[in-house]
């Protein structure tokens, strides 16, 4: 039987999703349904003096109006920060309380003040206008780099500083810098982004008063985590009385990893009114209240020798957490950022210092790449600038500093198990026709355009786990993954995974793995995910972890199935277990033509006895049934790496930048399904190029979100991109038996610096993201002026 791993199997889930037969949270409507509409703060920062619900409560169709006072009275717990970070001085991070409905103060535009629940959405929305909130408006703290100099938003948090974190050794770095020939410096802004999942967040909670159970449908990347948080921290219902179902989910990009106020409020409210409560966010609510991404202000320096050898690196970053510390808000700018900031290079000394600040903006949390894009942008812009200042080729300076032996102990945290960075870069230069670049540049010049080329060589740490490491770094949860493989009596298979697919294609990829392991045809395997009542507890999908951690759990569970199957087959074939081998779905007796298929063995496991012609003896001591589970906790992260080369063409008259050519050569270890992997890379590139050229989340000085719709927030579109040239190298991961490394975030990690390095190469000057037409045009005007002065 041909192996399915490595083949371009078309996505099993697409028929459903592309023909409108997917089932999303908004598609779920219960009998006796009610509809929720949230009253949100129009101010970035204000004290709540009074909330008058009397008119709204009497409005047509209104079932209930609940406020922050009800939350306090019912002792509903606040939203949590999931990762404890300590400051350089050893003190714990400082976080404000984050009630699901505010009772004392609101801290960003969109913050939740009250919920109106009515018989229809229109009635709920109309009544929400009648909720009268008396605010005392206060001066908002908005800008990342001004937060520490501004008024304290929370009285117990001086300078709005959550923590002042250090990773690395300042003294060693100083020594390295003292011995350097040259210091390269950059000041960078990693622009704030809005995740923009295609499906806005939604929740529908149905409380059954007779069983006291809540069933919560929600748009989650991680239903098990939602359940444990809503149970253990918000105290809405015990875990056994809360079932969380994340059905089809239309994208997450990190913004749906954890529960928000709305899920907590809908669950609690449903219990209170004893009717189902449904909330479906609209696009404006997504912009205002989904957690945003990035938002760093960074000063970084690289110490080099004149021959291009790197000696040391320092990184001083202010990270904006928004108004509250979200679940992964504190780890994103620290352990997901700092360790990767030295890039794919040998770096004798390094440190990352991150000051995380609160501002009156939407909370900031993990967004595709989470910390690694910010890290990669920092080091890659620095390295390219170093090449420019030293007059070196950007490829040459990189190769000079690549490690060549693996495992490679990276400067700050990670032991990188495998990689071949030279091979990747060489292949990228070949595919990108680096040799022909100068001709293309001249051709552009003839056409009145300015062409630039930019490199990015990256590695990242993903496959997020291992539990022992992440918990020692302050993570409040373990990050292993589970799987259960269940043979049905007739020989087909259901695989339950604790991860969750919201676009990644697990129904296909995971089935390919199970099909290969068990020798069962692909169409006989179903992947089940997203329901806490089905299958074991798991930790969901983010951090490019599902295949590496969850896929391996499937392999391990399949191994157990085969081990049991061998015993049963041996008994059925009346031979010793040691004489039975398993291959391509068959248990074969060595050197004979005796065999049993895995389907026959499964049948025997479910019908252990004699009935007419059926004779299915189970070995003594074996239980009936054929179902195994596995919980996999890897020994290390996985470390995808790659080399991307971008060419841009700039129109100096208008400043518009076109991505003319883009080459991405990635090492994701073993690839299960190239079709899906290419799709993941395309999506990541589009998001990363979006960050570099188009997307920017903009608050004005009073904390109003100016880019609150697609009229002002520039989403990249298909016509913004050339055909991407993709390619792969492969050094299998050693930390999991599949050898996979993770591919979901790489595109978004590598492309911003590749694009920006190309833009800066074209313009010969530093420029911040996004490189909008006007910014580029201004740089072109300056260039023109200095050229004419020089002439």
């Amino acid at each position, binding site marked *: 039987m041909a192996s399915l791993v490595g083949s371009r199997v078309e996505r099993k889930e697409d028929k459903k999703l592309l023909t409108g037969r997917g089932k999303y949270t908004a598609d779920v409507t219960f009998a006796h349904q009610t509809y929720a509409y949230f009253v949100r703060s129009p101010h970035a920062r204000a004290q709540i003096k009074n909330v008058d619900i009397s008119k709204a409560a009497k409005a047509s169709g209104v079932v209930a109006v609940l406020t922050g006072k009800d939350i306090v009275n019912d002792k509903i717990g606040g939203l949590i920060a999931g990762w404890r970070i300590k400051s350089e001085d050893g003190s714990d991070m400082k976080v404000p309380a984050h009630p699901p409905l505010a009772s004392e103060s609101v801290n960003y535009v969109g913050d939740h003040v009250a919920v109106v629940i009515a018989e229809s959405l*229109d009635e709920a929305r*109309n009544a929400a206008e009648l909720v009268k909130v008396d605010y005392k408006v206060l001066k908002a703290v908005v800008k990342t780099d001004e937060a520490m100099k501004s008024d304290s938003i929370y009285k117990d948090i001086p300078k709005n500083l959550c923590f002042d974190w250090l990773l690395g050794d300042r003294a060693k770095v100083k020594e390295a810098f003292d011995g350097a020939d040259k210091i390269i410096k950059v000041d960078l802004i990693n622009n704030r982004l809005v995740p923009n999942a295609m499906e806005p967040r939604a929740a529908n909670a149905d409380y059954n008063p007779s069983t006291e159970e809540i069933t919560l449908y929600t748009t989650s990347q991680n239903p098990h985590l939602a359940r444990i948080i809503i149970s253990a921290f918000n105290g809405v219902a015990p875990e056994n009385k809360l079932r969380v179902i994340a059905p089809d989910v239309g994208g997450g990009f990190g913004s749906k990893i954890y529960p928000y106020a709305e899920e907590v409020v809908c669950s609690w409210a449903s219990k209170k009114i004893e009717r189902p409560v449904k909330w479906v966010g609209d696009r*404006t609510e997504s912009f205002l209240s989904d957690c945003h991404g990035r938002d760093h202000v960074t000063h970084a320096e690289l110490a080099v020798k004149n021959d291009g050898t790197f000696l040391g690196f320092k990184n001083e970053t202010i990270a904006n957490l928004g108004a509250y510390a979200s679940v992964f808000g504190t780890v994103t700018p620290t352990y997901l950022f700092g360790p990767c900031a030295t890039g794919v290079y040998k770096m004798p000394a390094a440190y990352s210092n991150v000051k995380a600040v609160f501002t009156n903006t939407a909370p900031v949390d993990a967004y595709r790449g989470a910390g690694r894009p910010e890290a990669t942008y920092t080091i890659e812009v620095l390295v390219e600038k170093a090449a420019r200042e030293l007059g070196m080729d950007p490829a040459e300076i990189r190769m000079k500093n690549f490690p060549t032996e693996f495992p490679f102990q990276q400067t700050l945290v990670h032991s990188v198990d495998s990689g071949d960075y030279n091979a990747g870069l060489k292949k990228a230069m070949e595919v990108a026709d680096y040799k022909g670049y100068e001709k293309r540049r001249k051709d552009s010049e003839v056409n009145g355009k300015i062409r630039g080329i930019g490199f990015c060589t990256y590695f990242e740490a993903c496959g997020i786990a291992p539990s022992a490491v992440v918990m020692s770094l302050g993570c409040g949860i373990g990050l292993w993954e589970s799987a259960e493989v269940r043979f049905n009596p007739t020989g087909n298979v259901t695989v339950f995974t604790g991860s969750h697919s919201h676009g990644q294609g697990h129904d296909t990829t995971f089935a390919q793995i199970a099909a290969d392991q068990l020798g069962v045809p692909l169409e006989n395997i179903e992947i089940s995910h997203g329901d806490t009542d089905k299958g074991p507890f798991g930790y969901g999908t983010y951090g490019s972890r599902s295949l590496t951690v969850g896929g391996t759990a499937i392999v391990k569970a399949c191994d157990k199935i085969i081990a049991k199957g061998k015993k049963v087959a041996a008994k059925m074939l009346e031979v010793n277990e040691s004489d039975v081998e398993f291959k391509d779905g068959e248990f074969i007796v060595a050197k004979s033509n005796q065999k049993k298929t895995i389907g026959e063995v499964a049948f025997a496991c479910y019908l252990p006895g004699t009935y007419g012609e059926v004779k299915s003896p189970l070995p003594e001591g074996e239980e009936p049934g054929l179902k195994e589970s596995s919980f996999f906790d890897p020994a290390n992260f996985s470390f995808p790496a790659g080399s991307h080369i971008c060419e841009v063409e700039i129109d100096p*008259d*208008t*400043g518009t930048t076109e991505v003319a050519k883009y080459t991405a050569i990635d090492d994701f270890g073993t690839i299960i399904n190239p079709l899906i992997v290419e799709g993941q890379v395309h999506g990541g590139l589009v998001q990363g190029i979006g960050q570099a050229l*188009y997307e*920017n989340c*903009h608050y004005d000085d009073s904390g109003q979100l*100016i*880019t609150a719709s*697609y*009229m*002002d*927030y*520039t*989403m990249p579109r298909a016509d913004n991109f050339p055909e991407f040239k993709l390619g792969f190298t492969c050094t299998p991961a050693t930390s999991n038996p599949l050898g996979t490394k993770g591919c979901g975030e790489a595109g978004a990690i590598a492309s911003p610096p590749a694009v920006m390095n190309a833009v800066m190469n074209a313009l010969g000057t530093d420029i911040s993201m996004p490189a*909008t*037409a*006007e910014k580029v*045009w201004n740089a072109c005007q300056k260039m023109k002026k200095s050229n004419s002065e020089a002439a």
Partner: protein
Amino acid sequence: MKTFNYHSTKDVKEATKLASSSSAFLAGGMTTIPSMKLGLASYKDIIDIKRIKKLSGIKVSGKSVTIGATTKHAEVANSKEIKKAIPSLAALAEGIGDPQVRNRGTIGGSIANNDPAADYPSACIALNATIHTSSRKISADKFFAGMFETALKKGELIQAVEFQVPEKSCYQKYPNPASRYAIVGVYVAKHKSGVNVGVTGAKSCVYNEKNIVSALSKSFSSSAIDNVKIPSSGMNSDIHASAEYRANMVKIFAKKAVDAC
């Protein structure tokens, strides 16, 4: 959305009679409906005019192109007659919004709304348009009164827009990367009677860029624009483009338009 009364009429008189200070005419609904859904606008009466037959259609004579108010952008874009008479007008319609918008949105709706970044108003200015309403004819230079403001009176309904066929013309726009409305759109038209340069997106209302008009009147070539100074005062300034940038783009896109004429 707030509740409202929906009227569908087949007759202009009936439509105007139903109109009040709290009503709106509905054609394609590409602005009205989103505004209502977002709670930015609410009306007591919505008067649907799509079934009034005489408001839709295209008539081309040697000197003019007349487009009925409820004619959709896609119909203008695909009209063989318009492509022949004023190809730049068909091209402008092809560049409005996306296929969904072009198959719903109408010319009457666009100019009645007078969005400062809409495309059609620049065509009206450049092509000496006459706006035929239920009660009178208004020339384009008197029709567009300010941001989202027109000369239309309460209950007055646009019936058709009559464009003068120019000797040559071209519309070039620099679209807002987010909304794809014009950050700057420049419609250059050369008529026997003179040159017009309709500029949209740059200011609070479409206008005829007199500095470029006078340069082109002397010599209809893009190099004639090189030394024209476009002041940035009065230009829009927002997160997408400053006034200075817009002023420069007016010049750049006017040149592009002349070159492509």
